[in-house]
């Protein structure tokens, strides 16, 4: 494997583990909540933990969804153009994605940092550890979009969505 392939592989694996584990935490928290509801022993923290698990799942999964096309592309018009045009437009889409994510990173960091003044009501968690999910989301978007730009420029990929089974 060449270096870029290794990087894509590693980043993909990391994002997949993050998505899967966050989802697992979400499932367990909800099941505890259901059990609590049925047995009359309610836990105040389940709802909060479920919400935060979802945010982490989005943080790790949004980049993957860019890669797999789950971020919802509406590409009929551009894909029906002749010649190199679709390729160029796909490159523009990847550049736009990485540009947006890169521009927003410092702002997302500022948003993360105001969380340090705040604690969550039930878990008592410092909220910068939760606000950071928006920052992470943008980091993963940036990395996957930048890797696509790199891949397209070096001719390693054509910029079309990559289905998850090809990554697993």
């Amino acid at each position, binding site marked *: 494997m060449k270096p870029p392939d290794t990087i894509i592989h590693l980043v993909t694996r990391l994002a997949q583990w993050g998505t899967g584990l966050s989802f697992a935490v979400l499932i367990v928290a909800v099941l505890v909540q259901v059990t609590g509801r049925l047995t*009359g022993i*309610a836990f*105040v923290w389940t*709802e909060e933990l479920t919400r935060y698990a979802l945010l982490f799942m989005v943080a790790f999964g949004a980049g993957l969804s860019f890669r797999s096309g789950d971020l919802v592309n509406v590409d009929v018009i551009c894909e029906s153009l002749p010649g190199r045009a679709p390729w160029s437009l796909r490159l523009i889409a990847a550049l736009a994605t990485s540009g947006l994510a890169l521009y927003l990173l410092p702002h997302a960091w500022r948003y993360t940092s105001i969380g340090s*003044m*705040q604690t969550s009501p*039930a878990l008592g968690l410092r*909220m910068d550890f939760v606000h950071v999910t928006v920052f992470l989301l943008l980091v993963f978007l940036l990395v996957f979009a930048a890797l696509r730009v790199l891949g397209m420029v070096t001719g390693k990929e054509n910029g079309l969505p990559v289905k998850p089974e090809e990554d697993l």
Partner: protein
Amino acid sequence: QDMTLQLGHLANEDNPWHLASVKFGEELSALTDGRIAVEVFPNESLGKEIDLINGMQLGTVDMTITGESLQNWSPMAALLAVPYAYRSIEHMDEVASGDIGDQIKAEIIANAQIRPIAYFARGPRNLTSNRPIASPDDLQGLKMRVPNVPLFVDTWQALGANPGPMAFSEVFTSLQNGTIEAQENPLALIRSASFAEVQSHVNLTEHVRSWIYLTIAESKWKQLSEEDQGHVMEAAARAQEYERELFEQSVADDRAYLEEQGMTFVEVDGAAFQAAAKDAVLMNVSDEVRPIVEGLFTE
């Protein structure tokens, strides 16, 4: 016009808070000869409470109306809604505008970077149900919804009920289909959420008396000249006075309305409720405010 303050809040257009917010804007505009305007966004249209507080800290919103949610930043803000801490609205006024109130405000400014400039009283929270509940003994195992506030959950557990947190938007349906048998809220909310359609009794537990602050972002406050800060405080004071008139009117209206809708009002054994709740409350407030709460209980 030099400045427009954006004020977002969660109440609807008929609510006294909204009318007082609009009043605040009119007064401020008049006091500053139109230099400062206030644009009011009701119904969470500018964002939900926590989101608006974050926005004020980031400088993207200027004002909001917020209360005990501030305890996520400032532990003392828990005092805005402690079950059975205030005997009457006069007692609450005394605390809110007195020494303790000043301490709370100072801590909120320091920790959350937003500044309380006026306070509005809220109607006391009452328990609605489908049978009369006059004493804690009637609560045994009652499945009820409470907001996701640990102190509220623990207090109702201590009273013998079976409380569970639930999003407000699901409460009506859950009362309908019997997931829960009871819920608690101020009369105004019981009215606006049409709970009369699914509940028959209002038990006058008056278990939480609370107040809520009209606040301005500290960063915005610092941009104002000393003179304009004075105008803001004056307009806020007038809004507070105006709100109190509307509030007293609305409490009477709401009870009459709900009775007309067929709800039965039940007088409860308040002393028994308070006695049963006291230990749970003391155990579940933070160390910082416990001495104050103890003082309020023994007063």
